[in-house]
């Protein structure tokens, strides 16, 4: 729809639109462009968006290097386990919050809300000794368990909200038919909350996929490193293979980009739940 009057306003909007796109998009475009160059061409003067040596070599190098493929496998495995466990444990907790009155409810609820204000770096120092004591240092579990602390609260708050909108008559109908509460929760309530759970799952995946501080400190050997830490390792080891770092950045961002493209609506709903009601 185009307004008929106010031409200057329209021109201003178009200028802002383009400037905004350059600001937001240029760094990403440049990342993509440099992932197809040879390392010598990265800082070529004058810079070119597409060079004559355009190739997928940097990508091929990453796929041929088992150490770097391992970063991706680790990230997928850890994020996947975190999503499954967060949803499973979170749904159970949400059911308790939504359907029962019990002693300590307010206290547990306060703790869960409060976690969101706890800086990860505050927990890092005790985590290191705790994880070493539990003999989990440099394992998937060191990361999975510590990530759960930060993914669970959001999941519980969101899912409790969804369950609260579902009538208790649904659970009671199942129980009159001889089913248990457990069946009511997983067979009746959860299937109707799927869209909300997709939002929660994606947000959880993103938190786990992006985490850097714990992954840096609670793992040690390269076979346990995740993508965010791994990208940075490329800098130290191979004296700045910029094209490979860019290729790895593109590959490392792909899961989130794909999720965003296919589930934009859920994605936005999940991310903005904190500020917008």
């Amino acid at each position: 729809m185009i307004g008929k009057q106010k031409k200057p306003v329209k021109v201003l909007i178009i200028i802002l639109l383009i400037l905004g796109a350059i600001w937001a998009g240029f760094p990403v475009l440049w990342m993509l462009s440099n992932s197809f160059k040879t390392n010598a061409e990265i800082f070529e003067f004058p810079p070119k968006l597409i060079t004559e040596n355009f190739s997928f070599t940097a990508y091929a190098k990453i796929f041929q290097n088992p150490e770097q493929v391992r970063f991706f496998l680790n990230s997928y495995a850890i994020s996947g386990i975190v999503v499954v466990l967060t949803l499973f444990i979170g749904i159970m907790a949400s059911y308790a919050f939504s359907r029962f009155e019990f002693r300590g409810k307010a206290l547990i609820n306060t703790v869960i809300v409060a976690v969101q204000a706890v800086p990860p770096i505050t927990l890092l120092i005790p985590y290191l000794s705790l994880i070493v004591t539990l003999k989990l240092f440099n394992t998937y579990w060191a990361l999975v368990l510590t990530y759960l602390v930060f993914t669970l609260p959001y999941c519980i708050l969101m899912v409790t909200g969804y369950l609260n909108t579902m009538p208790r008559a649904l659970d009671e109908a199942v129980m009159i038919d001889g089913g248990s509460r457990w069946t009511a929760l997983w067979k009746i309530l959860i299937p109707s909350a799927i869209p909300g759970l997709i939002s929660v799952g994606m947000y959880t995946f993103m938190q786990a996929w992006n985490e850097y501080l714990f992954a840096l400190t609670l793992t040690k050997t390269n076979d346990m490193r995740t993508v965010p830490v791994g990208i940075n390792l490329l800098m130290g080891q191979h004296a700045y293979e910029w094209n490979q770092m860019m290729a790895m950045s593109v590959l490392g961002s792909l899961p989130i980009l794909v999720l965003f493209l296919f589930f934009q609506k859920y994605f936005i709903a999940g991310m903005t739940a904190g500020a917008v009601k």
Partner: protein
Amino acid sequence: MNAKLKKKLTPYGYLLPTIILMLILLVIPIVMVIGYSLYDNVIANKNPVFVGLSNYQKVLTNSDFWTAVGHTLFFVIVSIVAHMIIGMVFALILNTRYLGTRTKGIFRAIYALPWMFTASVIAITWRMLLDPNGVLNFFIQFFHISSEKVTFLASRDIALQSVTLINIWSGYPFYMISILAGLQGISPDLYEAAALDGADAVHSFTGVTIPQLRPILISLIMLDFVWTLQQFALIWMTTGGGPVNATETVSTWIYKQGFTKFQYSMASTGAVILLIVCTIIGIFYVRHQKAEE
């Protein structure tokens, strides 16, 4: 087991995994870190001695710590203001009636792009862009803004501003998307009423848009404050707090105390101070959310 007792215990059964996890990985670590901050060098020292609040006195009289606090405040406040302005402008553009739905959809996706990238990807990409031989320096020379190459991240004078710029780029989409959702929730009747009263675009913005968005804007500022205050990854991977200590913030200061200098008591003390500040903001946030309901 009798039915009544069983019924009473059921909710705790559902909550058991959460309670165990939060106890072991939240409550106990917080008690531990507070404990560490009250002893002289823990972990490294086999028999640490209780020193009361003297670590707090040491940290709060440490000039490096206060330098880091100053950098953090600059980083946080400039980031929040810039996030708010960019987020608001983009949201308003995407909400105008001058653009078609399809155009809006495409540009919304482009503007949301920085959101999709993890801190290490953002850090590396911007290190490349801001390199003395990088593309930004090419444009600076091309448009004759400066004849010399600008060392954005390696110069003590502008490293903090450069890191803040990177953080601005990475953080505004959250504002944009939230404000956009808020704008779409404002009833058109309010604007019509304002127009009938003779309000122009500026007045309907200050008279209708801002008051309607106020709760969202306050939430955004508080959330962003807590997040930016804790920002570690982006700074660590671009400058590591340097050159010298030009971009040292509270997070990098704590990390260095703990993991490069092995001064766990000092690190824990800094971490507890940060926790207290974040908790205070958190309390305001919860109160604000409750007041809105």
